[in-house]
């Protein structure tokens, strides 16, 4: 006999509902869930195979301790004692800021909430971050500044209402397929589709326009569109005057811009820029969809601000079918940020530096004070470890040894630590460097909540018992806190209890509870009161910050540009059937079989000049490293640009990428660096 357990897909931020099929105490399959408002009975290949890695033989079943170059099994009690002892010792000897914590966008809200509370309360440091820093921190900062809230303004289903969909820097068909479905439906309803992307991705097959700009020139492109809109008087004067401030500054900044110059920078013909601007500005409702092609740049925050400018300029905020819609990568990257697993924010984006807010949270947690200065962010942690300022690190469910930029540097950092704990479901590339490894139970084996990209807080439901001795992340943290004499603040026996505390310090979640979430649609934040239905569209009457604020942005080139020695631009991304560092998909036979190995896409013209044949081995070299991988000769990339998926440890694109940071959001520039190519004999 089988049971169908409704829960949420563990892969992307679309947050599709799935039914885990459980029989004989184990999860055996995944089926689509019809009643779920995002996926409506459909899934992508990742969702369909979400169960495949659960019982992979590599699952960690007991805690492990390093002995020289290998690991030995130890019991939980001993493991907890050792970790607690080491963390206390490091804190007492070198101060709280000598420890750093990395939470995970894959774990539940309850896990992330507890880990940040542990860092702040038990250790006393704000050194807590997670991979949101690497994907959408520029969104959090940029949209936060422009609108007052760094989240997707509209909802996934709402895209169907658009008259024009402008997709920039998002391979939606492969990375958020169930969001792409709404673009398809919008098109069936008559919407026009504009794609801006350096690569000829699948959306381009049905888009009305494809602007193929050079990687890293988004600000120039968007400024060009705004310039044309102003020239033609297509802006929404009424919206600008009623709802926004700072418009004059934008006008001034654009005054001297020439579209010929923009054409030169972006490589997109002026006429196309104008046509796209016109389509976007004239539609009844225009919706912007973007992802990491916008955010992962040293100008990531500028890119996001430019999108906010474009939407406000044309009054495309606060109505159905419009908005600025970042698509968050991981299933719970939205939630991990919401609940405070960020170096500068307490739960609910309350700045640690804001004394009043800090005091209020401290009071709710029953502690005298909380650390006041922002901690190290993800990449800064690694730098601090190399410099010897961070001595011990606790990594929960992340694999920076594949997913961070400049992995050589990450390896150096992790090896420099006195003590590294990794808590994961597999012995990942990162876990292999740990002193102690703690086995976590998988998402199918526990309860909790995930928050999808459209701010939808949804219940995860346990479909099977934890494998071996693995435990849910939150339970491990509670044990540790108990061992470190902080048990009173961590006396939780269920995720529902954690949620009840969490909502008290996370204003956006205040009106939610597990009981209210017991419905397929979950609840979209903000949900301030118990009788509040949740919010599907933000900034309807006014912006979260009151008035929307224009931030004029001037185009800056990427940190590293092609030159004689490194003549190609390398851009990186993901592919349909793999996920990030492949710790899950690489262990899912169906998914892995689709694309088992890495490659580099090279334009046919370039390939001819270099003498590279399709599927031949090539060496790709940047200032930071060298990898060998197979060439795919394809016109998906333009001449002068090459693309590598970053999933594959053996041909790790992130040995090449540049860890240069966006000055505000501290997000690294994954999307542009300069490389040289040559054939391998």
């Amino acid at each position, binding site marked *: *006999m089988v049971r*169908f357990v*409704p829960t949420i897909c563990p892969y992307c931020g679309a947050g599709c509902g799935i039914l885990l099929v459980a029989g004989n105490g184990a999860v055996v399959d995944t089926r689509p869930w019809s009643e779920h408002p995002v996926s409506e009975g*459909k899934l992508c290949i990742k969702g369909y195979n979400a169960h495949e890695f659960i019982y992979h033989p590599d699952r960690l079943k007991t805690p492990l301790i390093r002995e020289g170059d290998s690991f030995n099994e130890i019991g939980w009690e001993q493991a907890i004692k050792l970790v607690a002892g080491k963390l206390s010792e490091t804190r007492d000897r070198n101060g709280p800021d000598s420890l750093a914590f990395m939470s995970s966008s894959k774990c539940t809200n309850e896990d992330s909430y507890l880990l940040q509370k542990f860092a702040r309360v038990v250790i006393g440091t704000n050194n807590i971050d997670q991979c949101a820093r690497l994907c959408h921190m520029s969104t959090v900062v940029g949209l936060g500044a422009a609108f007052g809230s760094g989240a997707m303004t509209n909802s996934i289903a709402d895209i169907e209402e658009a008259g024009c969909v402008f997709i920039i820097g998002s391979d939606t068909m492969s990375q958020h397929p169930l969001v792409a479905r709404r673009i398809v*439906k919008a098109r069936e309803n008559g919407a026009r589709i504009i794609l801006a992307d350096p690569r000829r991705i*699948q959306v381009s097959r*049905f888009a009305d326009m494809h602007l193929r700009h050079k990687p890293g020139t988004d600000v120039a492109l968007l400024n060009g569109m705004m310039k044309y809109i102003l020239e033609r008087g297509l802006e929404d004067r009424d919206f600008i005057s009623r709802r926004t401030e700072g418009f004059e500054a934008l006008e001034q900044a654009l005054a001297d811009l020439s579209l010929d110059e923009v054409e030169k920078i972006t490589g997109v013909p002026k006429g196309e820029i104008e046509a796209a601007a016109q389509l976007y500005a004239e539609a009844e409702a225009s919706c912007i969809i973007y992802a990491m092609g916008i955010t992962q740049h040293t100008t990531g925050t500028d890119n996001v601000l430019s999108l906010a400018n474009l939407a406000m300029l044309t009054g495309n905020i606060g109505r159905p079918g419009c908005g600025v819609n970042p698509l968050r990568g991981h299933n719970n990257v939205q939630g991990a940020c919401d609940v405070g697993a960020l170096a500068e924010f307490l739960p609910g984006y309350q700045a640690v530096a804001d004394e009043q807010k800090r005091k209020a949270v401290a009071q709710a947690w029953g502690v005298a004070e909380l650390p006041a200065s922002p901690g190290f962010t993800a990449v800064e942690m690694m730098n601090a470890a190399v410099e010897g300022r961070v001595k011990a690190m606790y990594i929960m469910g992340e694999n920076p040894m594949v997913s961070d930029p400049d992995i050589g540097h990450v390896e150096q950092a992790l090896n420099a630590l006195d003590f590294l704990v990794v808590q994961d479901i597999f012995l990942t590339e990162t876990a292999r460097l740990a002193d102690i490894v703690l086995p976590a139970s998988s998402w199918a084996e526990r309860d909790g909540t995930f928050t999808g990209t459209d701010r939808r807080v949804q219940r995860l439901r346990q479909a099977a018992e934890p494998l071996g001795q693995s435990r849910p992340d939150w339970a491990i943290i509670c044990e540790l806190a108990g061992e470190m004499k902080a048990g009173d603040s961590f006396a939780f026996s269920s995720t529902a209890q954690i949620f009840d505390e969490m909502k008290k310090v996370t204003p956006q979640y205040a009106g939610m509870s597990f009981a209210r979430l017991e419905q397929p649609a979950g609840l979209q934040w903000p949900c301030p009161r118990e009788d509040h239905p949740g919010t599907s569209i933000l900034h309807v009457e006014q912006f979260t910050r009151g008035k929307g604020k224009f931030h004029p942005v001037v185009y800056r080139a990427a940190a590293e540009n092609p030159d004689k020695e490194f003549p190609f631009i390398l851009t990186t991304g993901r592919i349909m059937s793999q996920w990030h560092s492949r710790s899950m998909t690489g262990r899912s036979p169906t998914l892995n079989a689709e694309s088992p190995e890495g490659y580099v896409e090279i334009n046919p013209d370039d390939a001819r000049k270099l003498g590279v044949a399709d599927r031949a081995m090539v060496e790709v070299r940047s200032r930071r490293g060298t990898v060998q991988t197979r060439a795919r000769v394809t016109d998906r990339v333009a001449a002068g640009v090459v693309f590598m998926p970053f999933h594959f440890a053996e041909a790790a694109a992130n040995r090449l990428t540049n860890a240069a940071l966006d000055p505000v959001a501290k997000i690294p520039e994954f999307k542009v660096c300069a490389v040289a190519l040559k054939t391998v004999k």
Partner: protein
Amino acid sequence: MAKCAEVVQDILRGMLRERLVDEVVAFGRGLTGSDILPLFITDEQDIDRIVTTSYCPSSLAKLVARYGDRNKKMAIVVRSCDARGLVEIAKRRQVKPENLYLVGIECYGVVREKRGEVYIFADKMEVDGEMMPLDEAALSPNCRRCEYPVPTMADISCRIEPEGDCLVTVNTEKGKAMLATASVPVQDAPPSDVAAIKERAARWQEKDFGDIKRMEPGERLDYWLSQFDRCIKCYGCRDACPICVCKECCLEPDRGLIKGGEYPPETLFHAVRLTHVGESCVNCGQCEAACPMEIPVSKLYHMLSKEVGSIFNYEPGLDIDSLPPVSMVDEEDLLKTGVDFG
């Protein structure tokens, strides 16, 4: 209150109680009233959750083939397309017909996008307790083309009347035994009038297929290619289809036919499934309902099976002893159906 669910529930409860079957497979309530999930039930207590609304989120035939134990006796609540799917699955030896106890429900269509608790009748519909004229646009496209409202291949067949009565017909000897355990009085039903449904089916088949057949050959090719351009090879259509029950499927990358990791996949992906399912498609619509990219796949499959069926005088899902003209479908047949792509 769920319409007539009591009668159906009662029959199923009796069968479980008397150990006529080991397990019951049906649709039931999930998290909320409108959340309909498949249920595999062995405990009489769970029978209360079963519903009979005109909303079927998946093919129970497929689920039985996928998760059922073929050596167990199972009662399955089926609509006509489910029953026909099971007949086709039985021909492929994935289920043992002697172990299946089919409780049929007459079906005049199901809705794809739910608007509440919906019951569809021959010429009207009830939405959240309110009766109104039937809006054909609300029906799932395959249902509009369906000419088999009565599950004659089920052991018993229940007709839910707009007024709330449930009329039961016995179709087989097994059916008699099934009814013997029920504690509610069951009435014998007069035959259903299916003329209106046949008319509707003919009209929609003409519209859906005719639109495509009337295209110029090149235009027709472009139409399908532009549809397949959106395919993300999720395999959802295959995984939903009661005909696709192969343990090893030719469409998977390690079989060497379709390249892994290419999106959209080559047109061959669709051509292969089409030739494999071809003449056996029972028009259950599940492939299309599962397609994340809104590709009208069931229209294509239904059209092919109709064409091929008329050539070979074969109608899938009606008779377990009539075997499909498998492998008899060749390119020429495909051409006749207008699916002459690549």
